[in-house]
């Protein structure tokens, strides 16, 4: 049962990450974003990275891939927020423009982050108390002395 849930979460995370990649690739290819200073190459990197992580997530759920998926989602969200506040290298947008890409991307990125967090919590809870985790290592400095 637990493994079925984890596989489901892995596939859904892959789908959400692929949607983020598709939206950014579409904006890059068909909506003129590729000529925007710094933002254009950023979209290219984000979309290709998202497709790579999504494809690999269908094969396995390594922590490296989960970290990659989180970086894709957080990076896209960070860019979204900055472009509507302080700007990204002089580039700004307003609200949910361009529509509907902005909203779709926002939903997929928040969904991916929620899935990744849930996935992480499930793994932490099911791990034996003696097993090494970076969280435990970081939260228990006394044990290292």
């Amino acid at each position, binding site marked *: 049962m637990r493994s079925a849930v984890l596989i489901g979460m892995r596939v859904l995370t892959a789908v959400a990450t692929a949607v983020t990649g598709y939206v950014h690739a579409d904006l890059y290819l068909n909506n003129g974003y590729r*000529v925007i200073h710094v933002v254009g190459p950023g979209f290219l990197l984000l979309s290709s*990275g998202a*497709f790579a992580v999504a494809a690999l997530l269908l094969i396995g759920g390594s922590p490296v891939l989960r970290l990659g998926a989180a970086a894709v989602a957080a990076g896209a969200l960070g860019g979204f927020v900055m472009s509507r506040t302080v700007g990204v290298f002089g580039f700004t947008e307003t609200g949910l423009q361009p529509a509907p890409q902005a909203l779709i991307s926002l939903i997929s990125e928040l969904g991916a982050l929620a899935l990744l967090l849930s996935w992480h919590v499930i793994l932490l809870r099911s791990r034996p108390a003696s097993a090494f985790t970076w969280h435990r290592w970081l939260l228990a400095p006394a044990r290292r002395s």
Partner: protein
Amino acid sequence: MTGEDSEHGMTRRQLMRHTAWFGAAVALTVTGSEVISHVAGDGSPAAAAAVAAGPGALRFVQISDSHLGFTGPANLDVTATFGAAINQVNALGYEPDFVMHSGDITHLTLASEFGQAKEMMADIATPRVFTVPGEHDTINDGGKLYRKFFGAGTLGNGWFSFDIKGVHIISLVNTTSVDALGVLGADQLDFVRRDVAGLSAETPIVVFSHIPLYAMYPKWGWGTSDAVTLLGILRRFGSVTALNGHVHQVFAKTEGNVTFYSAAPTCYPLPQPGQAPAPLPVTVPAGELSSALGIRTVSFQAGSTNLALTDERLT
């Protein structure tokens, strides 16, 4: 696996596994990037410009805000920096189809300043030089002197349009009745309405103005009060590019089908919106002024949907 390995770090096998996943992700990212770039036909503005350099491509240059006549610590020699911009255009390695000066050619609307600008711009290696008036070009007389020097062949207060290599260019004046914001006015909006009536929705549109056609920072007058009406007229077009000066800094923004680009000046920078009490000239450290100034090259290849823009610092 040793006990020490598992207690203080990952095992060698785990490390190899993580490295393999990471390597696969990087390799796929690079491959994906190549594929997307290939689909796009190019990967960077510079490459786009190179593609557009083919036969039939439209290539033009935007220069802006030369403020000839300005004296102050922000730029001790605006004539020299304007001359440097012209030299940079002439050193592009190709002859642009036209050069557009997007306003504030002069600082004080003096005949001597207009005369000097006209003389300097005659040295630009291009078949045509077009201009848009800034508020500094119209401040004293509503643009009469500006039109005397640069108004030949224009309508109304200096607006005009033309077609070149598949692109429809519209040059608008939003500085002759500046209140808090720029204003286009009913006559000019009627002109645009009639001007684009016969164009297909696939025609790429480029609109020049001095003051931004979007609300970049209305508190400083960086916007045009009736631009919404203009954008409504242009809404049916698939690709609209609006190029402006006035704000003395490179800036880009999209709203629906329109992409707005503000250009760098050739005189001195202004503060970023809200980063100073008022939009007054910024004095940068000696030797750094040229990095705040620049020119913009734009190209368009027939069959493309968008223009390729490159902002170059003044050299």
